[in-house]
């Protein structure tokens, strides 16, 4: 018995090891997330080209289908020729405009022989900003040996996305907790308290979270002290969520660090429901036990012991 089990175990290890070994034989590489590039209107052209190359090969995911050197994928057109052919691709569209269009709305014009398959670069998963799109265009222009004409405008930089993290529940929580009854946020809400859309420019988000629990921390100028009700009962996680939402409105990146789990309230309520359910089941069991007793004959049941075994075995 033991020898058979040992053989089976060794067999299992041998099969698993074989698969793990084959896993070591295929090419080994790690893929890291793209580094965030800072592109401004002042970025020199060489740097813009370098950033474009990095985005194209990383965040943009362009090389999944295209190639920018001799070796590479050919599902999409060869990018080394993109800038050179751009001027003549679409009648009435200049080279630079065509390149930008092909990245932002790729389905607007399809190169003959290629299907509709390219995702718009400013949408997920690439999610590029216009400044990043222009950096890619700069790289494409440099690939063809042409002059880099593309320019990053102030509007392109301003429109750059601030954060890709999860949307915070702060907005919904402010409505749920009645904050907007007194405070105006993003143009909506009451005026009893100060306007909060840009409050994070004046206070640190962590302090805002504390202020919700303890309003005496400070009082905005022109408003009455003690008017705001303290909310220490509000879960820490919820207060952090509100702070994160307000931080986002001021262009700050702040994560709700949630010192309580998202189910702090629901968990207790659910626990109560489950406890009641358990009690109901216990009552049903008690009733069944009573019925069993009432039908039992004076002598010992021939199957009682077996019943116990059954329950014990399967539990």
């Amino acid at each position, binding site marked *: 018995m033991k020898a058979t*089990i040992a053989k089976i175990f060794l067999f299992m290890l041998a099969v698993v090891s074989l698969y793990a070994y084959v*896993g070591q034989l295929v090419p080994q590489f790690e893929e890291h997330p793209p580094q965030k590039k800072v592109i401004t209107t002042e970025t020199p052209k060489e740097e813009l080209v370098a950033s474009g190359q990095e985005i194209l090969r990383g965040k943009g995911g362009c090389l999944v289908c295209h190639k920018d050197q001799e070796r590479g994928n050919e599902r999409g057109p060869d990018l080394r020729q993109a800038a050179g052919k751009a001027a003549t691709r679409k009648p009435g569209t200049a080279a630079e405009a065509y390149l930008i269009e092909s990245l932002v709305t790729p389905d607007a014009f399809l190169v003959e022989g290629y299907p509709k398959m390219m995702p718009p670069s400013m949408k997920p998963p690439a999610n590029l900003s216009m400044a990043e799109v222009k950096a890619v265009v700069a790289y494409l222009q440099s690939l063809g040996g042409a002059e880099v004409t593309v320019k990053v405008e102030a509007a392109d930089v301003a429109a750059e996305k601030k954060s890709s993290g999860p949307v915070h529940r702060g907005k919904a929580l402010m409505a749920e907790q009645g904050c907007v009854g007194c405070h105006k946020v993003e143009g909506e809400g009451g005026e009893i308290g100060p306007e909060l859309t840009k409050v994070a420019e004046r206070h640190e988000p962590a302090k805002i979270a504390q202020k919700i629990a303890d309003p005496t921390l400070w009082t905005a100028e022109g408003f009455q002290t003690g008017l705001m009700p303290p909310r220490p009962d509000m879960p820490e996680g919820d207060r952090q969520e509100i702070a994160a939402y307000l931080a986002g409105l001021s262009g700050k990146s702040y994560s709700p660090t949630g010192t309580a789990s998202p189910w702090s309230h629901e968990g207790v309520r659910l626990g109560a429901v489950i406890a009641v359910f358990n009690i109901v089941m216990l009552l049903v069991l008690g009733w069944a036990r009573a019925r069993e007793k009432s039908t039992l004959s004076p002598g010992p049941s021939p199957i009682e012991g077996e019943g116990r075994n059954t329950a014990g075995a399967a539990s």
Partner: protein
Amino acid sequence: MAQAITTSAFHALKGTYKGVVKISLMLAATYLVAQGLSSFLPAADYRSLFGFSNRTAVWVIAELHLMFAAFVLGVPIFAFITEIVGVATKEKRYDELAREFTKLLAMAYTLTAVLGCVLLVLFIVLYPKLTGYLSGLFKPTWLLYIVLIFGEVIVAYFYWYSWDLLQGAAKKWHLVLGLLVNLWGTALLFVADIWVTFMMSPAGIDDANNLVSLWDAINNHTWMPINIHRLLANVAFGGAIVAAYAAVRFLNAKTDEEKARFDWMGYVGSFIAIAAFIPLPFAGYWLGREIYQFSEQMGVSMMGGSFAWLWILQAMLIGGLFLASNFYLWLGMGRIPGAERYTKFQIGMMIVLTIGFIVWATPRSIIASGAEMSAMGGSHHPFLGLFGVMAAKNTAVNLMILTTFFSFMLYRRGNRIPVVAWATAGKAVQALVIAAAAVVVVGYGVYSYFVPSITRIGFSVYQVSAVLAAMALFVAIDIPLLKGASVIGAIRWGQIPARAQYALFFLAVSFTWLMGLMGYIRSGIRQYWHIYGRVMDESANAYTMSHGHATIIVSCIVVIFFLLVSVVFWLAARNDPPPGPRPAGGGDGGSAADAASMPLAAASLGRPGGSGAGGRAA
């Protein structure tokens, strides 16, 4: 009689209540631990587990939970089907087999629930920000999930504990319970898939990631394909694990009767595993197609990007599964009188399977030095490169499926000779149907080389349809064809070489490793996104690890899983009844059915009204 029924009912309720208490306590402990750790640990978006990678911790526990969940969802489907067969054929051995499987469940449920609770704590503690976001989006589905868990526990435990109570005329109610166990289990699977598929192919949210439509978020691109894929995979996995259990018991069997019983059990397990395994690649195509529909880029990353090499591994695994399945069937034909007529086909089938295996495992790009690549004119070999693309691989796998199906049909026909007047014509039509499907598969395979990838992936549907249609037609002809067929001899259960049992064990290990690998690919293709394209992974573990590293983790998970499963098997075997008197004639080839039903018969002896095989269960 009434007394016995009341006692059985009480014990069935008591057993069920134990399950409810168990799950209630686990949930309470999960809540307290999660709340306690969240309050105690320093605030952060990501946390590590005592210096251990948070990603690896979640990965290992999630995969183990998934494997046990697959087991506890797959086995009841298996048991239910077997129980129905038992009622339909009036053969008690099927009922006994279903009971034997169900016996494995109680312990497996507990392990699954414990792993699920640990996973939940890890999510809340290690990924508080992401968990918070997902919880907010899917709060109604979380509540539904908890309701379903309780429903599943109640129905499944009652299904097990009422086995003796609901026999005879009440058997239909036990079947209803079996159906309910599977419906609840499937609902649980579908709800759990919501969160996982949303992370792959998010929908129902606006540009700022706010929820717009809960239903759209649920019914995202990959939800239903993954539901179906997992459902089939669970059946195949459950069957493979049960077959492995039977193989272990067969190898340790001391008597011919035991060998006959576990040989038969292994056969039934492998049959259901293979039957569910055959349509699995089709469900996989559907999933692949939906991934492409959702994001061409994600699809290309999966099939042609950094994950492409893992498909070579997958090909090796599935190729191995096909070979092992056929090997088992061919060895099994050795115990079927008359099956030697079909030995001549085995060489041809072996050639198709081997060539299919080789084609499927051919990589698109060859690992080569610079000099070798210049000699080849690139990283693709001028000739072998043609077999590294999906056009060839789809063709290969469809032919392998067709071959395995044919192999099984021959096995089924082994000891029978059709006697109907149209037997010759029927067999000729069957041969034509298989040939026609092969022509369609090869034809579309060749044509695939001349069309773009988005069109090519659509061809797999035609290839799959041809194979499915051929299988359906073949079976539709086979049933009346073999009606009243003359039987050459009874199957000699138990008279199968030990290596066939290792083939069954190989199937189970390979299935499990395959599940681990595919789970990694499915999750890994999100790359550095928690929610693809929407919520970026900003932790230190956002990178895609090397394949070698990933396969070592998958291997560790598989070894841990089998160690845990061994505990479940050991506990189940420990509760077996001591060997008792058995009716004569067990191992003589024709009476394996009797041999298999013996323990039940023995257990039923002396029971009032035959109501309690409870002692048997104990």
